[in-house]
């Protein structure tokens, strides 16, 4: 009998400790704002600049980097798990996450337009988009901006059925292209510029040529933070606008910061930045086009896009 009691006690203690452990690991940094962005995504340069130049601090916001991700959908999962408060992420993954009810976020500013490219191997015989028929093209993930754009491109050229689209994480795209396992990929800068710089591939077409001024990355905030402090949101957007303006007025200094955060060399960064348009005002009209495409691709089921966008995008903080 004593033995059973003893063992029972130990089991109960074990359960209690496990419970306490889990409780403590959920402790939040109440005052810090948790930021997420993508690994090596030059579209998120405003975030790097705002941190480096202290713009967030100037606006009275204490920001800490809580997550660096390999692709947009992963970052949105983190929002869903309440691990992030604000983040730089692609419009497409943000829309998919919001529409499918996984992450309740609001877009408070835009980060950039264009800035991605379709790349083919250096020895590739493909010179025009039509040449992609029957080939294998890699995208960073389903439901990303690049996924949407490649579909748009191939659909308009009527070769969508004939192309094999594969998901590969961006850092692995170049090695796989070099091995000729894929014929091309579409990814965000600075990967296309890097591949060109190293001579392992060349740009076939920029996304700006596929769809002019298409929105790409946005600045989102969790609904939770939004409801908590409008003042904080205001400060964040202010810092973002300041950083964006800085990039456009001081490109060389911004390039140095980019080198630090991505680890890529000056030539690659300079070339990449040329292909990105850094803006801050959300493009509601084109966001509607996003919703049509995502609906068409079967990724979301949003019937009333106007109502959805009204809730999703809040431009009220965007003023100088």
């Amino acid at each position, binding site marked *: 009998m004593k033995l059973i009691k003893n063992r029972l006690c130990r089991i109960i203690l074990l359960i209690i400790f496990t419970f306490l452990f889990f409780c403590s690991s959920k402790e939040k940094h109440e005052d810090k704002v948790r930021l997420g962005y993508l690994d090596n995504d030059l579209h998120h340069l405003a975030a790097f600049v705002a941190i480096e130049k202290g713009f967030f601090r100037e606006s009275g916001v204490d920001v800490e980097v809580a997550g660096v991700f390999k692709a947009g959908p992963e970052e949105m*999962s983190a929002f869903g798990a309440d691990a992030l408060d604000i983040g730089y992420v692609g419009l497409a993954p943000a829309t998919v996450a919001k529409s499918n009810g996984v992450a309740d976020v609001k877009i408070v500013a835009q980060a950039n337009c264009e800035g991605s490219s379709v790349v083919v191997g250096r020895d590739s015989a493909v010179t025009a988009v039509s040449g992609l028929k029957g080939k294998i093209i890699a995208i960073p993930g389903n439901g990303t901006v690049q996924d949407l754009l490649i579909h748009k491109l191939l659909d308009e050229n009527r070769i969508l059925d004939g192309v*094999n689209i594969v998901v590969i994480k961006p850092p692995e795209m170049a090695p796989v292209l070099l091995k000729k396992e894929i014929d091309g990929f579409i990814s965000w800068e600075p990967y296309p510029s890097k591949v060109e710089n190293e001579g392992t591939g060349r740009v076939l077409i920029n996304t700006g040529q596929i769809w002019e001024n298409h929105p790409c990355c946005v600045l989102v905030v969790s609904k939770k933070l939004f409801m908590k402090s409008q003042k904080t949101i205001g400060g964040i957007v202010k810092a973002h606008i300041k950083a964006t303006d800085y990039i456009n007025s001081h490109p060389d200094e911004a390039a140095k910061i980019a080198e630090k955060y991505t680890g890529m060399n000056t030539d690659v960064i300079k070339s990449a930045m040329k292909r990105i348009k850094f803006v801050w005002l959300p493009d509601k009209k084109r966001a509607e086009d996003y919703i049509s495409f995502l609906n068409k691709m079967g990724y979301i089921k949003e019937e009333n896009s106007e109502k959805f966008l009204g809730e999703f995008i809040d431009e009220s903080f965007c003023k100088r």
Partner: protein
Amino acid sequence: MKVSAKDKGFKRFSVLILIILSLQILSSLGIISKMSFPSPLSVCAGIGELILTGMPPGYRLLTHIEESLVRVFLGFILALMTGFLLGIIMGWSKRVSFYFNPVLELLRPVPPLAWLPLSVLWFGIGIMSKSFLIFLGAFFPILVNTILGVNSIEKSLIDGCYSLGASRRDIIFKVVIPGSMPSVLTGIRIGMGIGWMTLVAAELTGVKSGYGLGYMIMTARDLQRIDLVVAGMVTIGIVGYLLDAGVRLVEERVLKWRM
């Protein structure tokens, strides 16, 4: 506790059904939020959607299952051939075992997933890079259990057969191999199980054909369809269960002398 033939019907699933029912009730009452865990009903609907529409849309469940099975079988067959052969040799020859053991013991603790970058580098993103990881997962259980099986054969059995005039070749084919079967089949069951589990990890980076259960789940996650993620998990569980049942059937046949 004796389980009669009649019991083999539904009784064994009673606890499972109870759990599913409770989950559904808790979910319908809102106690479990739909965001943390999809209700069993929505998972069923998810399976239906995977069969009819597919994930990503246009890539249907049955083809995903087929592709995954092909990859697993390829890796598994390779593991069986090499693991069994090496196992018999190592079980039989103390000398071979002496020299090979350090190499194998060093490789064994490394999880198949850790080989992923190398596998992609060597084999690209076709079927071989996936089957290679599955091969690694299934190889060690089969090898270890085969060696065990050979070593577990009573010496008196072998001596008796030598005495009856058996040659060394006779002993290997008529005594060692049949005698090691119980352990070998255990190794096969475990190896098949681990191989199937390795599948999801193996399909995480680039699947050329666009089909595969692991890849399907990753896509569902990218598109924030947690109900489909769980539906995919359930599918993986069911197929894995059926594979194991298949091996057990073979086991019963081959080992009927043990009943």
